[in-house]
């Protein structure tokens, strides 16, 4: 009797879930490919917008899917699958950025002691996002340079909202913050970008 009840509970749990999640949790091979096909561009685009480096973004996309497959059994469906994947992407991307910053710091120390530091690691060139229309390429390169200067949380919120086109509620779920915090982050991000871009314009003029 108790066995039957737990079996029914198990069946109900799976019925209420996304069929793709159920298939993944059952370890069905087709589901792995389906998940990558469905989400690869979102994951890659998010990582690319944050890192502004194609190879690094591809590496992160790889890491994200490995993490998703390894922890899919722990996914309880409290949030949407896409939200959960975005959250993993953001975490992995931030880890990568921190790794790079540490490397840069080590590089500076190395340059002081052994002169082995490569100076080009310091200067990020213009980033041209492959999804931007040709006539907007130059303007968007200026924008991405400014986005790169934003504080971490503002940058994440701005990219999720403006580039990934997530609404405020979705941004809230990915970032696990309140709706008012999302609004505030986006407002400050826009303000900061405006300030930065106005000074860019001044420099152009002079």
């Amino acid at each position, binding site marked *: 009797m108790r066995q039957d009840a737990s079996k029914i509970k198990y069946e109900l749990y799976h019925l209420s879930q996304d069929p793709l999640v159920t298939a993944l949790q059952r370890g069905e091979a087709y589901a792995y490919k389906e998940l990558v096909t469905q989400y690869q*561009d979102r994951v890659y685009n998010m990582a690319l917008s944050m890192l502004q480096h194609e190879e690094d973004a591809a590496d992160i*996309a790889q*890491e994200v899917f490995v993490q998703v497959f390894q922890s899919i059994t722990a996914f309880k469906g409290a949030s949407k699958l896409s939200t959960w994947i975005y959250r993993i992407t953001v975490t992995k991307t931030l880890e990568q950025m921190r790794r790079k910053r540490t490397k840069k710091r080590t590089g500076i120390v190395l340059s002081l002691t052994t002169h082995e530091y490569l100076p080009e690691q310091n200067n990020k060139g213009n980033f041209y*996002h492959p*999804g931007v229309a040709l006539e907007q390429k130059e*303007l968007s390169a200026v*924008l991405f340079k400014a986005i790169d200067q934003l504080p971490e949380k503002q940058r994440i919120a701005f990219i999720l909202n403006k580039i990934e086109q997530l609404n405020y509620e979705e941004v809230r779920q990915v970032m696990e913050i309140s709706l008012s915090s999302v609004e505030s982050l986006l407002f400050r991000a826009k303000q900061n970008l405006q300030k930065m871009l106005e000074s860019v314009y001044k420099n152009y003029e002079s």
Partner: protein
Amino acid sequence: MNNQEKFAEEVINSTAGMQRATAPADLYERVMEHMQTGRKTVPLLPKVAIWQAAAAILLLAALNVYICLQVKQPTVPTANNSYIEQEYFSHTESI
């Protein structure tokens, strides 16, 4: 709105109509390889390039073998003792 503000607004709106970047075509294969080996896989070269390089190496090797087979043995007779004797001592026979 002055020119500066106009420029800033224009730049911020440059993402409008932006498409998502497309992930690498072999991402799924890389993920699966990563899962199996436990290591991140970084393709050094695209598969086509690897095949092209292999074909070029094979062609070069085949060409070398062909040329080696075509080269004839030297036609100049190798010197032996009788030849040397004949050339150097023939005019001294009368002495």
